[in-house]
């Protein structure tokens, strides 16, 4: 019983933590570029990033299989070169969580960066600071509330990820059975006791993480 609860919790937090870390870094870079640069095909980047938010998770999962499966576009190259197959591993669950939570990060953070008055950046330029320094020490700190909101949303989305993960990583006990998937399969198998336990833990973890973030944000003046 302990193993049936403990493993899903650990693997879920591990997947969500790694995916959120990548989402936070890449998402912030993408958001900065979308908010501050004009370039050809900007709309396309915006559409591609946002797409998983509007597609059914099963479709996202299916597209990931097409890309990452042994006969997929990237999956085949990877398999031919290294012999590694991504599907049905916890790593591919990280990719699935990344893809579905990136739009939440990018939408929130882009809005937060766009809301930073450009005069602050211009002031930094006139004081001799390059764009990268300005972004790191002026723009992003001033957008930090929005960035944190994006990170929290992305983490929550990753913890709750179900459809795409089930498609690409399956439900392999001891390997890819995340909380959301374990709850579904426990309920399907009539093991209501286990389902109840998992639900209570998942709700508690979610509430805790939200409460901690709210406290943290409240302490920030700006």
């Amino acid at each position: 019983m302990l193993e049936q609860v403990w493993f899903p919790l650990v693997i879920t937090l591990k997947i969500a933590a790694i995916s959120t870390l990548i989402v936070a870094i890449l998402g912030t870079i993408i958001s900065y570029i979308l908010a501050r640069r004009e370039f050809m095909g900007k709309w396309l980047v915006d559409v591609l990033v946002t797409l998983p938010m509007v597609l059914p998770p099963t479709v996202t999962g299916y597209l990931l299989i097409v890309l990452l499966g042994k006969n997929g576009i990237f999956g085949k190259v990877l398999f031919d070169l290294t012999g590694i197959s991504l599907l049905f591993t916890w790593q591919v669950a990280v990719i699935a969580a990344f893809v579905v939570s990136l739009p939440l990060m990018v939408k929130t953070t882009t809005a937060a960066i766009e809301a930073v008055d450009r005069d602050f950046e211009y002031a930094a330029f006139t004081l001799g600071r390059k764009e990268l320094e300005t972004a790191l020490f002026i723009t992003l700190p001033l957008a930090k509330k929005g960035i944190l909101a994006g990170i929290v949303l992305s983490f929550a989305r990753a913890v709750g990820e179900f459809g795409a993960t089930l498609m690409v990583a399956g439900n392999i006990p001891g390997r890819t059975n995340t909380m959301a998937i374990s709850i579904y399969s426990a309920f399907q198998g009539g093991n209501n006791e286990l389902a109840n336990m998992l639900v209570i833990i998942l709700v508690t973890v979610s509430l805790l993480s939200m409460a901690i973030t709210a406290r943290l944000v409240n302490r920030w003046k700006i």
Partner: protein
Amino acid sequence: MGIKVDFRKRHYMKKSDKKKGIDPVFMLDAKFEAGNELVVLFGRSGSGKTTALQCISGLLEPNGGKIIVNDKVYFDCHKRIDLPVQQRSLGYVFQNYALFPHMDVKKNIAYGLKGFSEEEKGRRVGEMLRLLHIEGLEDNYPSQLSGGQKQRVALARALAPKPEILLLDEPFSALDAVVRMKLREMIRRIQKELGIPILFITHNPVEAFTMADRMVIFHNGQVQQTGTPEEVFYHPQNTHVAELVGMTNIFEDAIVGDEDTATGTVLLRKDELQVSAMQQKLKAGRNVSWGIRPENIHILSEEDEKDVEEENVFSVSVKSIVNKGASKLIYIDIGHHQNLLIAETSNQAFEKLHLEAGDACKVKLDKRKIAVF
């Protein structure tokens, strides 16, 4: 030394408009020169002052021309020089101050001191705090400062890296009158002390007049006139400048009569309205405009009327009287084609006149103060 600019900037509604040959929505042609002095860029909102300042600072790229500051080429279209903002060594004070809200005053001022040791930074910040009389504020955050204090911190931050030119974009527009007066004085003092050119934007004529060594007048994206405040205020070159500097009484389409060489005056006439002005070298028959500032229209009391010669004296009726604080504005109907004149008198002088709206009286236009353009 000093500033030499001659550039153009075009704003298009959409980027593609330029290629399609669609006219830009705004055109700026900025051309002026100035020494290491306090230069006021003066004009209405939307006249191109801020765009000019942003082009000089490098925040905007002009479409052509040259910008040279202290013999350093900031921008030259033909030689393809466009020095990045960071390398122009300038100080810029924004209209909204743009103090970094997440840094205290000390860090804000030290932000431009790149490559300084901590000790040097501390010393320079101390110097700036003293220069602007804001000692004791160094640990405060911008949200804890008053408008005037923010302004001083913004100045300190801009001056800390020892810029070669200082640009100020309507820096006092959000401050009350007393703080404004103090800061105007402070900027003038700083200019004398540092000896660098300062470009200062304002649309406030009083501010322009009291601060400027040299004024550059903008209207509709064109520089209309450059000169000392006296030249610009008393000898505007055209109607736009005259209006901007507060010459509220302007008459267009007057014909110049023959010059009276004995008194050095000419007659300017439009229909029945005829005034004489102290002007030389005006060709007879020319079509000109003329104007007079409200304070140079004198309302004559009954005693005055006896011993005054008839030149430039008109019988008028008072339309309305507006209190302007230390003075009164008197709207006068001069009769000819319902031209309304505005006169300004001090409250003291006004009391002696016992005037009310609807009264008839006589006014005299000071012929030495009539500007022709």
